[in-house]
């Protein structure tokens, strides 16, 4: 029967295909010697582009240099879209097929505590002496330290700051804050002046300020820190965002929209792109807080008159902001020799020269003092202004359940900014969830 033959053929082909591919599986050798040779796999997303539009050229050049300085070692670069990095990592970890090195997101979340708990990230203390560590800023190292161990190499830093569109300031005759410092009252006053009906149709077209609320993002949070409120107690055992300092600050932020009417209705939604567009394209918002990537992005969007300022100062009397640290992590390894080689490569990627390059091209701050000494921001006034803010930066709390705690808080913050819930009621609800997670 003809059809039987065909069916059989298809089946055989399917099985043979699977079998053949199975044979090509590589067997990896293990070596105990210091001079480990073999292939290392590193993941990365697109960074700044070279003249031929290649967004991976920097890492490619680094890999080449490393291969020539380490005979017998080859570096395989896997290009991973940033947006899918976490999903690919999740599946690969669950399937025990992780890369050797992967980037750590700069947004402020640090190394995923779940990875540490599951022991898939290697501590790096054996490869970084106290002398090595000395060159790094303390808060950068601190961000990657858990239980006294170092779980990643900080390679770049960011800080959240207020971006001011000075064109609108000029148009409304508003004096920008001196040295980028303003008290809450001065800030509100400026926002009121900046909010206006541009085309005279009776509705407001330009607003003073806006921001968004989304899990894992902290642009709005320094406002909540303003009066001294913090999400967790110093030792990470108690939920403290329900304190009066925190809820008062939340109310002030929400009132910008509800009472003062200097923020658009969209403030507090999770729409990151829309918020950025309102500032950079539509120019319907004069001031927005962003991480430092936005400074170079604003320049790319032809905004030539941008100033960087601190978050307004509240009752605590000092401006405060939130920072983030980006870097590299090493995944669980069996071979000691390989670990050493990987650590060498991570050192190279985060060395002074590379940090300067990243600072100049990618809008990040160095995590090494020696890189900062090379003045990478000469001629770049907004980045210099933002750099000053790094001294005020605190990091997001580190806790094994932070992502869930974060979600519980952000969810309620959205409702507060929407005017659907009062701050104390919202934080009381958040507390119920968070208390369970702190145990």
């Amino acid at each position: 029967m003809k059809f039987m033959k065909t069916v059989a053929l298809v089946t055989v082909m399917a099985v043979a295909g699977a079998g053949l591919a199975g044979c090509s599986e590589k067997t990896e050798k293990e070596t105990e010697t210091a001079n480990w040779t073999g292939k290392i796999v590193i993941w990365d997303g697109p960074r700044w582009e070279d003249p031929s539009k290649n967004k991976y050229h920097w890492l490619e050049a680094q890999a080449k240099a490393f291969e020539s300085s380490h005979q017998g070692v080859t570096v395989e670069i896997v290009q991973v879209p940033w947006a899918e990095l976490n999903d690919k990592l999740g599946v690969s970890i669950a399937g025990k097929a992780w890369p050797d090195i992967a980037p750590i997101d700069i947004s402020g979340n640090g190394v995923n505590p779940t990875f540490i708990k599951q022991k898939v990230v290697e501590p790096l203390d054996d490869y970084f002496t106290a002398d090595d560590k000395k060159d790094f800023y303390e808060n950068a190292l601190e961000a990657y330290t858990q239980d006294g161990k170092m779980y990643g190499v900080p390679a770049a830093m960011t800080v959240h700051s207020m971006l001011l569109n000075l064109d609108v300031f000029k148009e409304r005759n508003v004096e920008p804050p001196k040295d980028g410092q303003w008290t809450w009252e001065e800030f509100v006053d400026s926002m009121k002046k900046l909010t206006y009906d541009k085309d005279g149709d009776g509705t407001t077209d330009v607003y003073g300020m806006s921001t968004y609320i989304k899990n894992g993002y902290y642009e709005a949070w320094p406002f909540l820190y303003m009066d001294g409120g913090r999400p967790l107690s110093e030792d990470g055992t108690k939920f403290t965002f329900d304190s009066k300092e925190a809820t008062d600050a939340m109310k002030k932020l929400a009132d910008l929209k509800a009472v003062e009417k200097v923020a658009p209705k969209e403030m507090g939604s999770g729409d990151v792109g829309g918020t950025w567009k309102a500032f950079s394209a539509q120019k319907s918002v004069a001031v927005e807080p962003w991480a430092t990537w936005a400074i170079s992005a604003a320049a790319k969007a032809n905004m030539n008159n941008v100033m960087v300022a601190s978050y307004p100062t509240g009752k605590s009397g000092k401006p405060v902001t939130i920072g983030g640290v980006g870097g590299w992590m090493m995944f669980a390894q069996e071979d000691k020799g390989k670990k050493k080689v990987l650590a060498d490569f991570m050192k190279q990627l985060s060395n002074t020269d590379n940090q300067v390059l990243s600072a100049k091209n990618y809008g990040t701050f160095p995590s090494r003092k020696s890189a900062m000494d090379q003045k990478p921001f000469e001629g770049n006034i907004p980045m210099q202004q933002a750099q000053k803010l790094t001294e005020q930066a605190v990091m997001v709390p580190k806790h094994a359940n932070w992502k869930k705690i974060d979600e519980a808080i952000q969810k309620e913050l959205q409702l507060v900014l929407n005017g659907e819930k009062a701050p104390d009621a919202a934080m009381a609800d958040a507390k119920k969830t968070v208390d369970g997670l702190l145990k």
Partner: protein
Amino acid sequence: MKTSPTTAHETGKPSAKLRSRQKSLLREMWKQRAAYLFLLPKMILFIAFIVLPVIWAFVISFQEFGIFESEWVGIDNYVATFQNEAFMIALWNTLKYTLVTVPVSILLALTLATLIHPLGRISQSFFRGAFYLPTVTSMVIIAMVWRWVYNYRFGLFNYFLSFFNIPAQDWLNQSDTALWALIIMSILIPPGVGIIMYLAAMGSIPESLYEAAKIDGAGSFQRWWQITVPLLKPTTLYLTMLSLIGSFQVFTQVILMTGGGPGDATETLVHLIYKTGFRDLEFGLASAQAIVLFVITLIFGLIQYRLLYRKSED
């Protein structure tokens, strides 16, 4: 083969002795070996890449997933699932979403197909194209467009409503409207597959049936209701089942348009499962949640199957 194979369920003759029954079963199977061979290639792939992964998910739902070793925890994950308030909220949102979008979109597909069917050849292929071609755009793009449609300030939706003096709303960013915004969106995206399937099925209904009904004096709506609709049953069953499964698994719109917010307003089951699995790496709990979703979908699937096939098939 007997006359109408789709109605008869067992052709094997009942026999008193188990052995002879087994024998007749084997004989029956051997007689139908061609059918098994037709199924075989698909089944090999189906088992390897779908059934086995599903079994893994089922097994893992009784474990606390660890990368190096997993621990058996009995039904703890299921208990945790039902004790989790977030799960209940997500379940409720998903149910609301499904119970509105499924019937409405099926009805819409049927109506639109009915309107298109009598048109001339050119109009017919034009509308078929207009409704089916957009399915080539991925949900990612559609979500982007709809985000703009719902924009508070510049969106088409508020613009359209302003003609009826309805005040502008920030549809995706208010607890009381966000889920409805997603529902309306999935209703307004034309059910391209449904329309095509209905059109194909309508084309296979013999003209003679309608002529006979005409002679009996049935009006056009009566003919539609009494001839077209019942004969489209297999298609309706297919579309409802597919749409039901799709709605219960609504995800892309959620993650791209609202991220589950504001608050919990648009948190859906698969979005929750996704977070549990990929953010927290708690695959055991995520699997338990997925199995619960499966059971719920199955119950609804069986209910609609029974509703559609209340009377005997065909």
